């Protein structure tokens, strides 16, 4: 997916309608906080963090 920058991480997540508690944003293998400014040519990964299955033990 391509979006025009620059854009703050929080704005990106709002735009994608993603809960910031449920994802991490990673740029060049580094975490970026919510107020980080993403440049137009940045490639970022928005990684889900919620997992769940068997409740054991």
């Amino acid at each position, binding site marked *: 997916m391509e979006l025009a920058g620059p854009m703050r991480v929080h704005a990106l997540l709002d735009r994608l309608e993603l809960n910031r508690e449920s994802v*991490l944003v990673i740029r060049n293998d580094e*975490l970026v906080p919510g107020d980080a400014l993403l440049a137009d040519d940045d490639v970022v990964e928005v990684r889900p963090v919620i997992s769940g299955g068997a*409740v054991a033990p």
Partner: protein
Amino acid sequence: MKCTVCKGPAVIDLARHNAHFCTDHFLRFCRDQVVKAVDEFAMIAPGERVLVAVSGGKDSLALWDLLLELGHEADGLYLGLGIGEYSDESGRYARAFAAARGVRLVEIDLPADHGFDVPTAARATRRVPCSACGLSKRHLFDQAAREGGYDVVATGHNLDDEAAVLFGNVLRWDEAYLARQLPVLAARDGFPRKVKPLVRLSEREMAAYCVVRRIDYQVEECPMAVGNKHLGYKEALNEVELRSPGSKHAFYFGFLARAAERFADAALADGGVLGACERCGAPTTNDVCAFCRLSEKASAHEPVPVPRPRTRR
């Protein structure tokens, strides 16, 4: 955004703590939270041998890494569940972690060692897959700990896991489950002590820990867990957390401090007289334990295909 501690560049913001951390101080925060949980709930005594239940996902690998970093003697236990490519991949992450650190990984494979897999067990016993999986894990973790002489089994349940399970148990007012929803389950009658050292850390914090520590883990969700209630509860609680940071912590730790004790009688009422399973010797309140009954049905059932893995958004 600057680190709350050192004013260096922050890599993560934690709204529930009203804090931002650089890499070094985030790692220190995670270690401090584990130390606090271990001490507060008397999870692991000095010198005790720990068996970490490792799935290849972020929580269990982060837990193993944190316990090793904190100086605990911790081996890993990986259970192959026979969930097709998903299990193949999860095993590779667990083995790679152990090999990179030169630590011991015990492996048990359900299909090879017990003749069935989770999809088939679920169909054969008419359980939801997560129930068949959980039953198998409980039995095999306990057995491995007993046979390996470990003092304690540690699992990667985090704050989100515990808050979501609590939410579900409260929705149903399931007193027996509420009575057992504690960060430590004491050892008894052949069952090892079970501890959850990540209860003070959120799911997002554990994923961030793995990224910062360069721990490769399985990001993909289990294909058998898609659409389960537990995931729905987590999403609901994260909506609350977004609007009111700290709600998950307040919910779970408030329960532990002010309500858990009220359900203690339900735990006592739920327990029967324990004997030994006539097939495997595991402690059980029946002649044959639940795992041996599941194993018998699943082994006799036609193999059930595994759903295709799903890449999550």
